[in-house]
């Protein structure tokens, strides 16, 4: 008997894949979901080959409200889930506020789809299990460069806080992770102003926060301090920063 399944929604995400590897190494079996069938399958093969865990790979589109139903229908026997990780996210180079299609995608993928997936999966999560929502420091103070992304992540953060309040200690633990810059597909080629953190270390940091039962955590930790300062910065100064 293994330790049960951890579901990774967004299996092709850099951080999602690193978390999958982390939990597989810890002895969990892994349920993977993503919209690119062959790529998700390859991630699954990697986990099975490296860590000899059981892997279910499910091909899904985040564009539908049937997400959780479809997920469980095509992966019978995985419930009760020990954990659920929401790793989907999209940050557009173009201004999402000026483009209806981008706006819809951004708010849906970064927020709406997460709610649809998590709410649908909740009945299948073990009461002692965990839910991880990968949110972002971009949700803590709106910035000119990506405030639609930031606003969606702020919504996700608030959603996670609400869930935790709802369970109030009876039910799965929800950890909202406020990620700083990670060296991932999303940030490669972007000028993030600083080198991104190593995904493996980030995954370990997230798992630590989950194990401690934190409802919110900055990963890497130093982002807690950076954001503390940034949130307190008076507008007169903040507005002059091009960050």
């Amino acid at each position, binding site marked *: 008997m293994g330790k049960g399944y951890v579901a990774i929604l967004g299996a092709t995400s*850099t951080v999602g894949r690193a978390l999958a590897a982390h939990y597989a190494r810890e002895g969990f079996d892994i349920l993977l979901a993503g919209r690119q069938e062959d790529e998700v399958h*390859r*991630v699954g*093969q*990697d986990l099975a*080959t*490296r860590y000899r865990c059981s892997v279910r790979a499910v091909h899904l589109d985040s564009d539908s409200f049937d997400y959780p139903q479809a997920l469980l229908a095509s992966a019978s026997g995985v419930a009760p889930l020990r954990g659920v990780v929401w790793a989907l996210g999209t940050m557009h*180079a173009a201004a999402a506020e000026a483009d209806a299609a981008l706006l819809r995608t951004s708010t849906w993928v970064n927020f709406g789809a997460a709610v649809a997936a998590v709410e649908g999966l909740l009945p299948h999560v073990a009461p002692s299990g965990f839910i991880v929502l990968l949110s972002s420091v971009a949700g803590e103070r709106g910035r000119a460069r990506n405030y639609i992304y930031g606003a969606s992540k702020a919504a996700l953060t608030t959603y996670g806080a609400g869930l935790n309040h709802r369970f109030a200690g009876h039910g799965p633990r929800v950890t909202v992770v406020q990620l700083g810059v990670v060296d991932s*597909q999303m940030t490669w*080629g972007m000028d993030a102003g600083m080198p991104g953190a190593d995904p493996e270390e980030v995954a370990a940091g997230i798992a630590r926060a989950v194990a401690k039962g934190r409802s919110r955590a900055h990963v890497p930790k130093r982002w807690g301090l950076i954001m503390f300062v940034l949130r307190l910065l008076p507008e007169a100064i903040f507005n002059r920063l091009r960050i």
Partner: protein
Amino acid sequence: MTSQFGRRMEIAGWGHALRTEAEVVRPELVTRLRESLLSGNGIARGLGRAYGDAALATDRVWQTTRLNRMLRLGADGLLTAEAGVSLGEIIRLALPQGWTLPVTPGTQWVTLGGAIAADVHGKNHHEVGTFGQHVTEIILCTADGDLHRIGPDQEPDLFWATVGGMGLTGVIVEASLRLVAAETGYLTVDYERTQGLEETLEWFSGNDAAYPFTVAWIDGLSTGRSLGRAVLMGGRITERRELQQGTEVYPMPRGAIGVPFEFPSGTLSRSVGLAFNAVYYGMHRPERQKREAWWKFFYPLDVADDWYKLYGRRGFAQYQAVYPPEVGARELRALLERIHKARHPNFLGVLKRMGEGSPGLLSFPRAGLTLALDLPMQGERSVELFRDLYAMTADLGGRVYLAKDAFLTQELFRRMYPQWQAFVHLKTRLDPHDRFRSQLSERVGLSGVR
């Protein structure tokens, strides 16, 4: 879409004598790699262990290090993985299951793709041939973005152009490699020391049949009668029954110690080199049946994963050549003396006798002695020295290893690699617009001018 664009940054060959700025694309998915292949020219890059400019391009570089999914390791020892996995990772995965690499270069930090593209050789070349000769299948992404499944029996022309092809036929996406059984993670090694070149060469003649793994570390600085004196190693994989009860059968190393910063140029002066060579030579007293963990035997240089920094900002270059079987002590002596005459510092030298060549059109190995020497770059005089060494090599009928090279001209390249025409012919058909090009390929005329 997630950002599929590259990052403009400086990249360098392992010797750090050659650097360039390029748009580095680091795909994590095959789909992203293919998209990016269709919108630019450039070359694949693995862990950047090629010494010169084989993995440097001025436009785009596809860095495969995150295309590193292990896909399968069967009970028959057949491993399938994406091109960006490192050999070090493969060993860590496979060894506890009783399998090891059939061939390994002197560092474990090269990628599967890079090992195929350079058709690398190891200390057992005389017994088992090159890395590519153990590859059963490659999935290659060509200039049109198509994926080709190729192998020794499947489009063999393209396969043997890709094995040793230095990335010029396309980007290797995934490959299958036949691993070999290893009873333990140890080697049983005999060390010997010789007093001079003739004795060193004799040792190979007498011992190549006796050991699966042989190599000589030669003291590149000693002159006169002790020129070519060496520490010789002959090894074999230790058998299970030789281990004491309770010994870990497949040991694993703990982290590497790094050289933390760039030393000022010239740190590795002649005297430091002298000292280093003397220490290495002095360290290994003749010893028999010494048991060594796999990483100590195969990867002595990996203890510091960025030791190139020892050479300072100007970097270094390596001369590695293989000569026809008739070349012996007299000719090697002339080559080494050319270096001594210039009073040019040099570092460790490696000498080995290779077995028969590989079918790879541009593969380096062929029967005969191979000599490798690291030389810190000291401006024009170093370049001159390399030119002379290369000319001497060509005159001897030898060839220079492209994965180490930084100086070969088109004319010398053609003399050394007589199959260049067949390669160019195939490349022209496959990649008519030279989408795949590196600074190496431009220098030796494998892309661009023809």
